[in-house]
């Protein structure tokens, strides 16, 4: 997790996180911030910032937790 100015970049490894879980997490948290999802060969890259800048870090943590929970519930990344 890297933070530049008001944005935070998250890299979700493809073999650890399910893509649909990340999509679902973004949908759930869409009303709290701004999200830009891109793909790397080995990861999904998410750049985000909260509508309230002070909450950006917390938003990133909550979204990552949610995506991990959905991934586990789906039985894994594949």
């Amino acid at each position, binding site marked *: 997790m890297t933070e530049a100015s008001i944005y935070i970049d998250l890299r979700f490894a493809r073999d*650890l996180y399910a893509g649909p879980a990340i999509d679902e997490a973004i949908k759930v948290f869409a009303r709290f911030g701004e999200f830009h999802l891109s793909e790397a060969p080995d990861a999904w890259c998410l750049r985000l910032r909260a509508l309230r800048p002070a909450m950006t870090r917390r938003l990133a943590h909550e979204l990552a*937790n949610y995506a991990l929970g959905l991934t*586990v519930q789906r039985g894994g990344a594949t």
Partner: protein
Amino acid sequence: MQSAYPDIPPGLVAHDLTAAAVQLQLDATLYPLQAIYGAAYIFIDRCYVFLDRPRPEQVRVVLTAKGGQADPGALRALVGEFANELLSCAWRHQVTLDNRVLLETVTMQAIAGAMGQPSLDDLASFDFSDQGFDDPLGIALSWEEKHGKKAPATAVTTDTAATEPAAATPGEESAP
């Protein structure tokens, strides 16, 4: 991130007090991914959990306190509890793998038993002829087939009886 726990081998755990986070490097050959998922799932209500793979054979787990502040002792306790839970999940995963065949067998028997006994109609319409059936003891034969009355004597039998000498009556027995 810096390591500050003398009771943990160096390079495995590092913490960042400003971020209230502690990270744990796991050997993926020792801990299966399902065990890591299991332990992480248990901890997502207590802290923020993030998984990363810095190297193909390694998984990095980052635990961040939800309050945003944590002292080294609290982070040490957090990572210690996570490691314990991880070991428990890994062991349960191994037990599940070892007993997979037994579990599947018992489950199949339970499901088959829950279907109930077949009705008379089911039995009547069941096609027994499509299975190879080896019955050397004649168990599948009906009672009539096995012990029933024999068929009436045929003409051949009658002829045979006619050629046999008639049974001697008591009065006709010859003396020695």
